[in-house]
């Protein structure tokens, strides 16, 4: 198909080993405060103990409201931010250890950003942007440019027309294709798509989604697909992870999560999906208000302030993410020993 500029990476741990394991990831952004104020305490708890695995060859969708920590998680996985606690294990090797340096990890994991314009250097031609990463890893420039043109062709942009252009001369959809080509230039195994199609028109979005599916099959990729658009996530994902206030509240196969959601938050999110059936339409918002402030999350279950099923116990006891077969949920309703059934309802 194309000249292999960088060698493909060997599968280290076999197909059963998760491509990426995220363990206990924590990122708090301390708030600026004057030196005489007391230290500690005030921080935005953007990501607060996140565990998940991305299996080889799957697409893991991540959904949640804005501010729930989706994008911070993406940046932590890409190590654009340093985590406070927790570790990333890529195909059995800890990222940043002597066996898998950060630089080597970044050859195998790449990211596509939401803003197609600001993620391309305005002073660089398209082909130079795509060729940059391989040259960083020692590919001669001429070869990298040739490979970049092939990749542009592969993502649906004629190199003759587009390779010598600058980002401002392209449409949003075309630019996002360039960003995808740029992410693929290092022949990564994991691609993180952070709201990669969210800013596009619906028709263009569908084309780019199909391109992503096509590329995934062609290059044997694994996707971590972050979006607030439930329809898109349902379309592209194999498994779905639902986040709320820096925590994973539900994680499971896409069919299970979308058809038998277990967490009240997921249920509410799904009810907020616009329905094509007029009989299903509701005027009432399934979720009232904004999420609580992540600086000072509510005690107990973080969702209890907005939960239709909240009971007194939910204010005191924080649920853990518990597995029910392939499906995992963080809710006291599904923890029989929690005393939820006996607790009285919150008014």
């Amino acid at each position, binding site marked *: 198909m194309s000249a292999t500029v960088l060698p493909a990476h060997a599968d280290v741990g076999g197909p059963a080993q998760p491509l990426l394991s995220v363990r206990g990831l924590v990122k708090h952004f301390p708030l600026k405060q004057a030196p005489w104020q007391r230290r500690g305490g005030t921080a935005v708890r953007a990501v607060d103990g996140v565990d998940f695995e991305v299996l080889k060859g799957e697409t893991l969708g991540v959904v949640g409201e804005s501010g729930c920590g989706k994008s911070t998680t993406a940046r932590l996985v890409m190590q654009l931010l340093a985590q406070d606690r927790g570790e990333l294990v890529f195909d059995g090797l800890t990222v940043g250890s002597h066996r898998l340096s950060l630089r080597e990890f970044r050859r195998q994991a790449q990211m596509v950003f939401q803003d197609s314009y600001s993620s391309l250097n305005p002073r*660089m031609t398209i082909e130079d942007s795509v060729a*940059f990463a391989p040259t960083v890893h020692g590919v001669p420039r001429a070869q990298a440019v040739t490979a970049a043109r092939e990749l542009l062709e592969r993502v649906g942009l004629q190199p003759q027309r587009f390779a010598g252009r600058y980002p401002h001369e392209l449409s949003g959809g075309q630019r996002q294709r360039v960003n995808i080509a740029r992410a693929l230039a290092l022949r990564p195994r994991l691609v993180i798509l952070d709201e990669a199609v969210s800013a596009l028109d619906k028709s263009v979005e569908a084309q780019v989604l199909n391109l992503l599916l096509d590329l995934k099959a062609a290059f044997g990729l694994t996707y971590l697909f972050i979006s607030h658009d439930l329809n898109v996530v349902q379309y592209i994902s194999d498994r779905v992870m639902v986040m709320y206030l820096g925590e994973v509240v539900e994680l499971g196969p896409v069919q299970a999560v979308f058809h038998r959601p277990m967490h009240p938050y997921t249920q509410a999110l799904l009810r907020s999906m616009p329905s094509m059936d007029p009989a299903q339409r509701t005027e009432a918002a399934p979720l009232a208000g904004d999420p609580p402030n992540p600086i000072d999350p509510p005690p107990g279950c973080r969702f209890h302030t907005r939960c239709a099923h909240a009971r007194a116990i939910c204010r005191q006891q924080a649920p853990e993410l518990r597995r029910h077969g392939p499906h995992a949920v963080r809710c006291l309703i599904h923890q029989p020993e929690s005393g939820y059934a006996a607790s009285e309802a919150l008014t």
Partner: protein
Amino acid sequence: MAYSRASAAVHAPQPAAVERSPGYWSNVWRRLRRDPVAMAAGSLILLLILMAVLAPWITPADPFHASMLRRLRPIGTPGYPLGSDELGRDLLSRLMLGARLSLFMGITPVIAAFVLGSALGVIAGYAGGMANTVIMRTVDVFYAFPSVLLAIALSGTLGAGIFNALVSLTIVFVPQIARVAESVTTQVRRSDYVDAARASGARSWTIVRVHVLSNVLGPIFVYATSLISVSMILASGLSFLGLGVRPPEPEWGLMLNTLRTAIYTQPWVAALPGVMIFVTSISFNLLSDGLRSAMEVKE
């Protein structure tokens, strides 16, 4: 295998030519060419530079030849088209030769400060955190003084002379350029394309060289060109005070000083060096403005 690959490379059909868009700077140049004011200012500057370079060969008279009998002749005196100065030297010739030192003293400190200030500002802006605080707060200490005062104080401390004047003017401009460089770099550093470059495993130095400099040098350069006029005026000021160029070397600021006693007898002659300073510095400012608007178009 090796043979077949080599022959494939030789006989591979040439790919169709890639259409190229004009680069950013050729677009800037295209827009600048359509700006009559900037082009006029630019031409005038070129003319002045040409005059300065060729001055030793094209001056109508010897700029150092004094004549006690022909002091302070008015403009239009035969043999003295622009009059003569307080020592009877031909003013036109001295103004032409003076362009050399005046332009040199105006441009050199800005170039030096452009290099040093950009380096400091880009490092501070890209590194952020502690390095930023240390660099920028140090720079702020210098920035806190009015530039005229700082230039005079530094020059006075270092001692009179062209080189010391250049050094002190450079020190005056480094903080100003560093501040601009830091703020543009901080902006660029937060952009997604820098994150994407980091995610590709590139080292900081490579990212700065390839991605940051290409986006910050333009705005810093425009700011620096606007400093040339200030630098010329400050340099003239230093010479006026006897801290820069020494007599009998012609320099516009120094000439303004030595002619000032003639302001009541030959006001037009006495004002001429000032007119030269004014025309030159305003030309640099107009060119800088034109450059700024030519570069401002979003792309």
